[in-house]
């Protein structure tokens, strides 16, 4: 049992670490060809372990800091997550094994992907804040290394910097939450956080919510996900689905009792999710680049999970997470296929791509329709489960969520129409920018599997499976979507799709001034730069000058003062003192010379001197008397 709990994250982590260090010991040339197979095998083993762990529910406890308990355990929520993470990672890595050519640094890539997956597994099985934070931060660092994978390009490295720094800025909240947890509950145990004394749960929740919103690219942190697109497509496929962004939603779902206990945090989280779903949905609608559209849609879809966490819909939120993982990894892999095959991800240039590559086109179509929440595909049911809980919470929240759902039909429709329109890509493919054009079997294999998931995973939120799903997650009394709600939302999605179709055919374009904020992701990155990054760097430079001039200047002045005092003593004091000594010497010499004068050696002068002295003595005696 215990072994299983340890092996689950250990298999991908150690294999990944070996691949990363092996590049230097074994050498790239020998390791690179073996790396894809090693990664696929390790993740297949991980998937097996994940399924076993989901059934056996292992729990490991070990001492970490002092007497604070730490550990890894698989409960219902973790079980759902580990299977999702392992399955999606395996699918993505199989695809990458086919896509990555011999000229790429494959050991590094697959090593990083494995550590990335392993860190996510640690995050979702941790039972305490310390271990959770370890997985959480390592995942962030791996995302940095993966986004900046093509490091020769400074633009991509800059994107990696932005992603890591933004998520880490939010992560500071978890460090704070850990301290507050120790103060408030005497432990770092996740299960006990809600029971903290006094105001401590408020502080813990504040830190955890900040960290989760950052990791999940919710407002106002969403912009990093746009920059994260600079990584290779398989990285996007993994980072946007089952790992990284999902971690924030997972944390909020896990901490549901804590959010409720504070009174304000649940509401805040619900609204943050709903507003992100709405605004980033608008951002997605305005994008002209397929990967950027998908990125913004990730923020929006994760918004539904965050909304679910705030509204207390653990079952609905988790179902949304699982289904979205399948949908989004599928869409990114398909987009990546076209990018490498046709050399473009511009929506305007992708026309006909779906016709040219039939398998990719069909699976992408299923994914896009699922994203649009078309019945009976997965996100239709899961999103309505979330919205049902929102309706129970507040009608306003429901309205915003519903509007966000309509937007998702709009952007999914745009993407779908762009790739199915019958012109453009064939011509572009013929002129051939730089594309490999052929798809290998490894690249094809994951697409139907993920498409199947994207199609059917909605059953988790529909009867009769939803009861078992709730039992698994221990979420008994959550509201379910009524048949009427389901029917209305499905119909609305179809209507929006139809409207989008007519708009696109007629070439209706919104005015550029209106779409500009949405196109530029609400200018969030520029805001972060002007409000945070630049002032901090300016402060750093000012302090560096201060350090040089004032603090070290003070030391230099002190030293110079010492030297000057010495010089002063040398020139002034020393001269006088020395002069005095000289004067004494001169006086003594003069006195000596004067004293020599009377010593003539002639008796008569001595007599005369004696007589004068005698006379003076007599005179004194007489006067004193």
């Amino acid at each position, binding site marked *: 049992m215990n072994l299983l709990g340890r092996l689950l994250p250990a298999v991908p982590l150690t294999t990944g670490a070996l691949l990363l260090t092996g590049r230097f010991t074994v050498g790239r040339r020998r390791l690179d060809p073996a790396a894809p197979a090693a990664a696929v095998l390790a993740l297949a083993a991980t998937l097996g372990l994940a399924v076993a762990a989901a059934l056996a529910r292992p729990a490991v406890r070990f001492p970490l800091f002092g007497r604070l308990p730490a550990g890894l355990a698989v409960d219902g929520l973790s079980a759902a997550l580990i299977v999702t993470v392992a399955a999606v990672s395996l699918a993505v890595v199989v695809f990458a094994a086919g896509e990555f050519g011999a000229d790429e640094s494959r050991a590094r890539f697959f090593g990083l992907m494995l550590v990335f997956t392993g860190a996510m597994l640690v995050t979702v099985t941790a039972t305490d804040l*310390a271990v959770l934070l370890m997985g959480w931060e390592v995942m962030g660092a791996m995302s940095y290394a993966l986004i900046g994978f093509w490091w020769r390009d*400074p633009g991509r*490295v800059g994107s*990696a910097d932005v992603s890591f*720094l933004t998520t880490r800025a939010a992560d500071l909240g978890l460090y*704070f939450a850990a*301290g507050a947890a*120790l103060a408030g509950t005497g432990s770092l145990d996740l299960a006990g956080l809600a029971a903290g004394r006094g105001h401590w749960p408020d502080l813990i929740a504040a830190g955890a919510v900040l960290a989760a919103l950052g990791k999940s690219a919710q407002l106002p942190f969403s912009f990093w996900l746009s920059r994260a697109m600079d990584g290779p497509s398989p990285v996007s496929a993994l980072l946007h689905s089952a790992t990284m962004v999902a971690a924030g939603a997972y944390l909020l779902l896990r901490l549901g009792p804590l959010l409720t206990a504070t009174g304000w945090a649940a509401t805040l989280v619900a609204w943050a999710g709903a507003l992100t779903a709405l605004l980033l949905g608008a951002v997605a609608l305005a994008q002209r680049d397929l990967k950027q559209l998908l990125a913004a849609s990730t923020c929006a879809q994760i918004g539904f999970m965050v909304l679910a966490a705030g509204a207390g819909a653990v079952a609905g939120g988790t179902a949304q997470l699982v289904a979205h993982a399948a949908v989004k990894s599928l869409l990114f892999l398909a987009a990546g296929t076209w990018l490498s095959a046709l050399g473009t991800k511009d929506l305007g240039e992708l026309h006909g791509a779906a016709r040219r590559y039939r398998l990719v086109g069909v699976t992408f179509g299923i994914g896009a329709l699922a994203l649009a929440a078309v019945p009976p595909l997965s996100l239709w049911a899961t999103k309505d489960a979330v919205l049902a809980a929102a309706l129970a919470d507040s009608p306003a929240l429901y309205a915003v969520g519903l509007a966000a759902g309509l937007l998702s039909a709009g952007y999914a429709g745009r993407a779908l129409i762009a790739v199915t329109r019958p012109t453009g890509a064939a011509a572009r493919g013929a002129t051939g920018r730089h594309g490999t054009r052929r798809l290998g079997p490894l690249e094809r294999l994951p697409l139907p599997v993920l498409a199947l998931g994207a199609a059917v995973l909605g059953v988790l939120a529909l009867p009769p499976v939803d009861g078992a799903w709730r039992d698994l997650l221990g979420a008994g009394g959550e509201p379910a979507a009524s048949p009427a709600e389901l029917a209305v939302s499905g119909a609305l999605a179809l209507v929006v799709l139809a409207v989008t179709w007519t708009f696109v055919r007629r070439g209706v374009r919104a005015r550029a001034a209106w779409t500009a904020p949405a196109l530029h992701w609400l200018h969030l990155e520029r805001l972060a730069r002007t409000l945070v990054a630049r002032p901090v760097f300016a402060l750093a430079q000012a302090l560096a000058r201060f350090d040089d001039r004032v*603090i070290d200047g003070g030391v230099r002045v002190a*030293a110079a003062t010492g030297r000057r005092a010495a010089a002063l003593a040398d020139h002034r004091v020393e001269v006088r003192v020395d002069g005095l000594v000289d004067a004494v010497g001169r006086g003594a010499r003069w006195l000596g010379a004067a004293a020599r004068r009377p010593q003539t050696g002639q008796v008569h002068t001595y007599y005369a001197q004696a007589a004068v002295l005698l006379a003076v003595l007599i005179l004194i005696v007489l006067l004193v008397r």
Partner: protein
Amino acid sequence: MLSLVIFLPLAAALGLCAVPAPGARTVVWTWIVACAADLALVIALWIGHGNGGGISYEEKVRWIPSVRAAYHIGVDGLSLPLLALTALLFLVCAIYSLRRPPQVRAFAVLFLFLQTVSSGLFAALDLLLFFVFFDLSIVGMYFVIAGWGHGDRTRSALKFFLYTFLGSLALLLGFIGLYLGAEPHTFDMVELTRTPALAGSPGLAGLVLLAIGLGLAIKTPAVPFHTWLPPAHTDAPAAGSAILAGILLKMGTYGLIRIAMPMLPDAWRRYAWAIIILGLVSVLYGALVAFAQEDLKRLIAYTSVNHMGYIVLALGAAGAAGEQAARRLAVTGAVTQMVSHGLITGALFLLSGVLYDRAHGYDMGRFGGLARAAPVFSGLVALGAFASLGLPGLSGFIAEFQIFTGVIGGGGPGLVVAGALAIPGILITAALFLRLLHRAVLGPPGELTSQVTDVRRSELAAVAPLLALSAAIGVAPRFLLDVIEPVSSAVVALVAR
């Protein structure tokens, strides 16, 4: 046995001096063997000590009976990790010197001398003995910088010497204060810890703490007493920088835990907030100033100010009112940070030495794309950078997480605010290391990149063990924490008296 650990390097140094004109190869290999033997002995000490509290391997010999000063040494869970760090860091410096610096015999002798001095300091249980080692370390490092440095080395060495010597004079003043305040007068640390001096006169105790604190703060260094550090590092040879940052800085914070906290508990508690603020300022100021640096070595030097600031912050928090468990966590974190900083910064300085060896410059802007020219070097730099910015799985996180959690976990509103203000330090550190990687290691090649070749075998053998150990602590920290935790409990209890 403990004396053997301390004086084995000195014996090797004397041996090297005695032999007429040995070859450079012989010198370096003798040096390496002596260091390796010393490290093996320290590991044996560690195993023998186990995880208990209390002092083992105690030795006491009459030295200056008229002032009751003795050659009194021993080890506990606080000194053992630092002794091990000393032995390891000197060993890797010896391996690094397989590249043979000029006048290698004098260099080796000086380093062996410094090793004896450093080990002696971490084992000393007598204030006068501690002071002698403290002062000799300054002398030894002065000659390392002045003799084997580059740039404006005599000036930097002189500044280093005078500034830290001033600190050691303040320290001596404080020690004399403790001596006079104890009844009967003594320099013995064990006795001074058992019955704190000046318990009845808070004013005098405050002054003594001020003198000792000033002396140790200069050595640590805490802002605003840090400006000797950047020039000393910039102009020192790589091995010298590694020892200076890895070992010599620890003497300051070691003194705080070993002397200031247990011997002046009342004063420590009374002035805990001043210490917390000193630490907090060092954390933020050090990180921000490091962020703006263009010179690689100055950058690492300022991150040392930041990292050592966490230690001061944690020790201050251990004196403020709060939960015992949280305070223990803070002190454990502080000691872990000493070890972790020694490993990581030692590695980073040795790596910057590689850069200087190839291209004679530290200016980040003139490099770029090193990952292509020197992949192994770049991998090591990246690992060191992420270790230094506190990535889990490496030792920095283990230390800093405990410090933050311990400080905030203390529970008072002031402590929560202090902890919350200190946490952004790791974000600024992250930003500055990513900037370093972005400018020097990744991207297109820069002006000096073509001169840089990858690490040689001796350089790899010197740096890799440090980072490997950092990773070992990061993944499985218990072997270290098991030794430290009894001591941090004891220290917290002593301060709470």
